[in-house]
């Protein structure tokens, strides 16, 4: 299947995403921010970086890119969008996902391994994982503290839309394991239709044993397996 990888000015993880996708045996095509053409992508990845310099707020300006209009339309039709780090920030700014990502509680830019517990396998992105699996995937961000009002957080939990939580390597959510102070240890969420995922950690940087972990590959493989060749969502996912 084909992954479309968004490239905004200041995106820095696009080549890493393409490398990981190709390593998984799938096709990667780059999507320029000024284009509206998704080039037949089955899943659009919004990679990490500092789109448009992250001026004003992280992701605030990328949301108005012509490419994002196409992405919004694509997801409304059930297409898969996968925001990583800055891509998560863009998805929140575009209101495709609720909440916001604010300055890390520590005020530090954190670039380090983190451990994510899979909280749901009811979306395409974790379809090949099991609930409770712990994935080692690094974070690399200064503004990744997930915040939302209590009602939104409750709704996310009730509807199984919290996909990943920061945990200890043993799989315990203890607050201290979150590198950014995210509310309820949230590392990744999906939209109500479960076809748009936003996550702060970088799975594309954990796809080879040489990099310390290949756990990120399980997510790419999940997406690929969840989609039929024509790009339609398989019956097993929502």
């Amino acid at each position, binding site marked *: 299947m084909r992954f479309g990888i968004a490239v905004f000015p200041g995106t820095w993880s696009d080549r890493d995403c393409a490398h990981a996708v190709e390593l998984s045996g799938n096709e990667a095509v780059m999507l320029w921010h000024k284009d509206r053409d998704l080039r037949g992508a089955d899943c659009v990845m919004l990679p990490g970086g500092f789109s448009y310099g992250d001026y004003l707020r992280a992701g605030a300006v990328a949301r108005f890119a012509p490419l994002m209009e196409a992405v919004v339309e694509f997801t409304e039709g059930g297409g898969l969008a996968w925001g990583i780090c800055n891509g998560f920030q863009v998805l929140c700014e575009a209101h495709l996902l609720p909440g916001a990502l604010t*300055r890390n509680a520590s*005020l530090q830019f954190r670039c380090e391994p983190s451990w994510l517990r899979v909280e749901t396998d009811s979306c395409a992105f974790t379809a090949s994982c099991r609930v409770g699996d712990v994935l080692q995937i690094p974070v690399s961000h200064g503004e990744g503290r997930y*915040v939302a009002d209590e009602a939104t957080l409750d709704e996310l939990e009730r509807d199984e839309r919290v996909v990943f939580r920061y945990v200890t390597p043993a799989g315990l959510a203890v607050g201290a394991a979150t590198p950014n*102070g995210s509310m309820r240890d949230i590392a990744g969420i999906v939209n109500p239709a479960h076809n748009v995922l936003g996550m702060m950690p970088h799975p594309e940087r954990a796809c080879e044993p040489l990099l310390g972990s290949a756990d990120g590959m399980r997510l790419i493989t999940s997406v690929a397996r969840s989609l039929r060749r024509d790009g339609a969502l398989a019956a097993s996912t929502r």
Partner: protein
Amino acid sequence: MIFIADVVVHLKPVVNDPQGLVVRDGLRRLGFADVHGVRVGKHIQVELDAGDEQGARAAVESMCDRLLRNPVIEDYRIDAVRAVAEAAAAS
């Protein structure tokens, strides 16, 4: 007419402001023991063409709603909208 609008965007009171906490602690270390709290926001100055002050204010409000602030975590206020046509002509 050219107007300048001063917009202040700040985190909502319920949103944790680690930057403000660091500044608060810094002030206390400097001996400002009376400081209870500090919140850090942004000052955005917008220069725009508008027919009158009301029109300028309405346009800036729309800018705040659409881009300048994130309604999930931030509030804003427009401190001043002033005509600067004369100043612009003089420079």
